[in-house]
Structure formats: structure tokens, C-alpha cells
């Protein structure tokens, strides 16, 4: 009978050390890796794609609203509405003079008739320069003013009081006021984006949880054996966590790549509109950075969810 193979005492002693990592290569092979063949990466890819697009929309809307309100804050429009061109011009010039001397008014200018016509062109058609023709359809004189402070109700009332005498036909409005419903709509859309992102995160968590449970069930035997051989909960959780993190990273990268393609394509479309309003809806580098965080958050979410599912199952074993 041959002698029993000896195990060096140091090796035997190493066996007692609890909590050591299962070494690199063997850790990954404990659970058979069926990478990118299961539904997991695809689910994550779709989730990241949708989340990134919702986030990009939210951020773009935010930029648009911020830029528009910065442009419009303190902006005041004075319209002189009088059918008689002479009276209209006189009142407008007097109002202009008064506004120039009013404290708190930083800038003021009379919008030239050509500019007003251009603004109205889409609605009224091309107008000839013939004064008779022009007067047939009276257009108000417009004064564009910018206040030092916000164009709130008190500031507007003060302006109205000063203009009442010289220009009785003047109508004073805050520029932002015109866009109030637009801002409200933009805000609602941003909250919608936030809600969508929250729902997508919940769905992703649920999907990851299901995937982790399925993986756990199909490897319950393996887990029990490693557990009985003295594997710690942390060791076993790490194996699963890692395999799911790799799946999630692959899915996340794919999802982000698709999202970037979609966002750039949409951005081009909006640029093509050439509208001054849509021009403010671009994404800054901080926004792109935030979008880059979406797949990272997905990987973190997947890893944490998988880990807690495995640990909960392990805690039920003695």
C-alpha cells in the first residue's frame, strides 16, 4: 500500500483562514458562465437605452427652460395700439423718452417697423413698404425694454403709472409672462422624464432580481456545496455579483451606445429646425457626463440587487 499523499502543514493551516477570497480563475468558474446568452444583458441594454433617452430629454428641456427664462427675465414689451399712425408714432416716441429716464430700466429700444413686419410675416403675409398699404392693417408699435430687476407685477405697475399720461394706448407686459404656459408645460415634461427614469429603475431592479433568483435556483446545489465546504456568504455572493456585473456592463455599454446614436440623430433634427428656441435645447458636457453615469448606475444597481438576493437566500441555510 502506497503512502498517503502528504499535505504540507502550512497548506493545512491556510485552510483555517476564514474569509479568504476564492482565487481569481476559480471564482469565475464556480458558476458556469453563459455570458450574453441569457436575457440579462439585453434587458439591461434596453433599460439603459430608455433611461438615457428619458434623461437626455429631461436635461435638454431643462437647458431650454433655463436659457429661455434667462433671456426673458427682466424683459418687458410695451405695445402702443392705436389705429392712427401719427398718434401711434408720437405715443411710442414719448413712451421711449419716459422709459429712458425711468430708474431701473437698463435698456430700451424701439423695435423698427421692418422687424415687426418680419415677425408678423408668417401670419399676415409679406407687406409692401407702401405706407398706405401698411396703414390699411395697423400694426402696434413695439418697445423692447430690459429691467435691472425681475419684471414682476409691482415693476410693471410702476411702468404703467409712468406711461399712462404720455402714452394712454400703451400696453405693458412681461416677456416671460407670455411664455408662462410654455414654461409650465416644459416643467411638466421634465417631471415626466424624472418619473419615467424612476419607473425604469424600478423595472430594472425587478428584472435583475428575477434574473438573480433564477441563476440562484439553477445553482442552488453548487451554492450549498460551497457553503458546506466552508465558503463564506461574502465569497459566494461575490461569485454571483461578479457574473451579473459583467452581464450588466455589457448590456449597459450597448444601451448607452444606442442611446448616444439616437440622441445625436434627434439633436441634428432639432438643429435643422433652425429655431432660436430649439437651439437652446442642446446638451452640455456635464449633461453627457450624467448620461454616461446611467449605465454605471445600472451596473451598480444590478450588482447590489444580485448581492442582496444571494445573501438573503444564503441566510436561510444553516
Amino acid at each position, binding site marked *: 500500500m502506497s503512502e498517503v499523499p502528504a499535505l504540507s502543514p502550512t497548506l493545512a493551516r491556510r485552510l483555517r483562514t476564514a474569509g479568504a477570497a476564492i482565487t481569481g480563475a476559480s471564482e469565475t468558474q464556480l458558476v458556469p458562465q453563459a455570458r450574453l446568452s441569457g436575457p440579462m444583458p439585453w434587458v439591461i441594454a434596453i433599460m439603459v437605452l430608455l433611461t438615457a433617452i428619458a434623461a437626455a430629454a429631461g436635461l435638454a428641456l431643462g437647458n431650454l427652460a433655463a436659457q429661455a427664462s434667462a433671456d426673458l427675465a427682466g424683459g418687458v414689451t410695451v405695445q402702443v395700439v392705436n389705429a392712427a399712425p401719427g398718434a401711434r408714432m408720437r405715443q411710442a416716441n414719448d413712451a421711449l423718452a419716459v422709459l429712458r429716464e425711468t430708474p431701473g430700466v437698463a435698456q430700451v429700444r424701439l423695435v423698427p417697423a421692418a422687424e415687426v413686419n418680419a415677425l408678423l410675416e408668417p401670419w399676415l403675409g409679406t407687406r409692401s413698404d407702401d405706407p398706405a398699404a401698411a396703414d390699411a392693417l395697423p400694426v402696434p408699435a413695439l418697445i423692447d425694454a430690459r429691467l435691472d430687476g425681475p419684471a414682476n407685477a409691482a415693476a410693471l405697475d410702476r411702468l404703467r403709472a409712468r406711461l399712462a399720461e404720455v402714452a394712454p394706448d400703451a400696453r405693458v407686459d412681461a416677456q416671460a409672462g407670455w411664455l408662462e404656459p410654455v414654461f409650465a408645460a416644459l416643467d411638466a415634461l421634465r417631471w415626466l422624464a424624472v418619473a419615467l427614469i424612476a419607473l425604469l429603475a424600478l423595472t430594472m431592479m425587478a428584472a435583475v432580481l428575477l434574473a438573480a433568483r433564477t441563476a440562484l435556483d439553477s445553482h442552488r446545489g453548487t451554492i450549498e456545496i460551497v457553503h458546506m465546504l466552508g465558503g463564506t456568504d461574502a*465569497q459566494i455572493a461575490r461569485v454571483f455579483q461578479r457574473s451579473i456585473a459583467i452581464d450588466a456592463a455589457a448590456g449597459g455599454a450597448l444601451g448607452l451606445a444606442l442611446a448616444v446614436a439616437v440622441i445625436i440623430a434627434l439633436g441634428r433634427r432639432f438643429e435643422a429646425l433652425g429655431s432660436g428656441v430649439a437651439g437652446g435645447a442642446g446638451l452640455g458636457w456635464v449633461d453627457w457626463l450624467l448620461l454616461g453615469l446611467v449605465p454605471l448606475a445600472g451596473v451598480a444597481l444590478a450588482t447590489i440587487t444580485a448581492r442582496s438576493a444571494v445573501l438573503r437566500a444564503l441566510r436561510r441555510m444553516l
Partner: protein
Amino acid sequence: MTGPDAEIVRFDNVGLRYGTDKEVLTDISFTLFPGTFYFLTGASGAGKTSLLKLLYLAQRPSRGKISMFGTDAITLPREHLPGFRRRLGVVFQDFRLIPHLSAFDNVALPLRVAGVEEDDLRKPVADMLEWVGLGDRSHARPATLSGGEQQRVAIARAVIGRPDMLVADEPTGNVDPDMAVKLLRLFEALNRLGTTVVVATHDVHLLRKVPDSLIMRLDRGRLSDPTGALRYPPRRAGLVPSR
């Protein structure tokens, strides 16, 4: 050699029931001493596997006290269990090999779990597989091995870490008599190195093959102790001849 330091396991009035069924183990009291070779016998269904499960900490008793390595094993916090389990080698009645790992990787598993480096474990694992006669099958998956070969892989995995206590459930049930004797020699060699060995078997011929062994007999969930050696252990258990 007496006192709690000298005993490796102690059961006091242990009872076990599964769910609400009647007890499958009743009033089990015994002490296991380091470096002793025990056989656990009894008819099929007598409760051998159940008793071993208590021994390898896969099951908590319904009542009674169990201490292991001088520590109360019942109130032991969960996070201390892996440390205890690494001091045990277990041959399960149903082998419990990991199906997608080769024979080599199955045998290496306890070492890897304990954090042994690849370079340090390659040779011991290969030697152990050679010793159980599977040197040329080290890349085979369990499904491609015969029942007896799987059993030998399970045994190699249980002894590779040179545990303080080896618990084997019918470890020779699927091998021919010559291989059975050879595997018993492996257990004896481990026993000589200081490991306490507990082998459950209903093969009475096996008992005679290890002269210095003590016998625990289970009869429908009760432990009979014909020589009293379990309840009143000899001062040096290893020197008491078996009956």
C-alpha cells in the same frame, strides 16, 4: 486527556425531528475524542445520515446540546460556521460533486475556498487524485465518471484539506471490496495524522478491518453503547481495541 479540551465533539441528550414528525434521533449522548476512529452502524433508516448532518453542522437539533471543538455549536453565530466547516471533511452519501467542474476542480474546491494559491494546490490535488486511482481522469466531469469513481472524488475532496474531523456517509457503498479496503487505509492514514474519523456504514465486514476503531450503533434513532466506551470514554480512546 480528559476534560473539555480533549474532546472534539460532545452530544448531550440530543433529539432531532424533521418538521412535526416523530423524532428520528432520540436521547443521543456521546463524546468523540481527537485522533479516534469511529464507525457508525445501524439499519437503513436508523438515522445515521441524520446524526452525521448534526455532526457536520448542516442541521440543528430539535433539543439537547452539541459542542464542537470546545464551543457550543448550537448558539454559534452564523459567521463562525465557515471556520468550523473548514476544519471538517465530509463525504456525503450522495457525493454532492459540482457537475460542471472537473474531478480536479472538485477536489481543489476546499483549498480554493480557503484561499490557497493555484501554485500551492496543483500538486497536492494531483497526488490525491492519483492516490484514489483517478490520476488519468482528473479532467473528467462527474457525469462521465462511474458511481465508484465519483465516490472516490468525493473522498479525495473530503480529505485534501487534512481536516480535524472527517465525517463519511457510506463512503465505500459504490466501490469493490479491494477499493473499499484501500479507501479505509486512506482514512486510517489520516487518522494517524490526528484526524478524528467517523464512518457511517452498514457493512459489518468493514468494521473488522480497522482494529483500533470504536463502534456507535444506531437502532431506530437511539444510540446503543454496548461497551460504554462512548458514554464513559477510555482515558486514551485510541488504545482501546474494538470488539
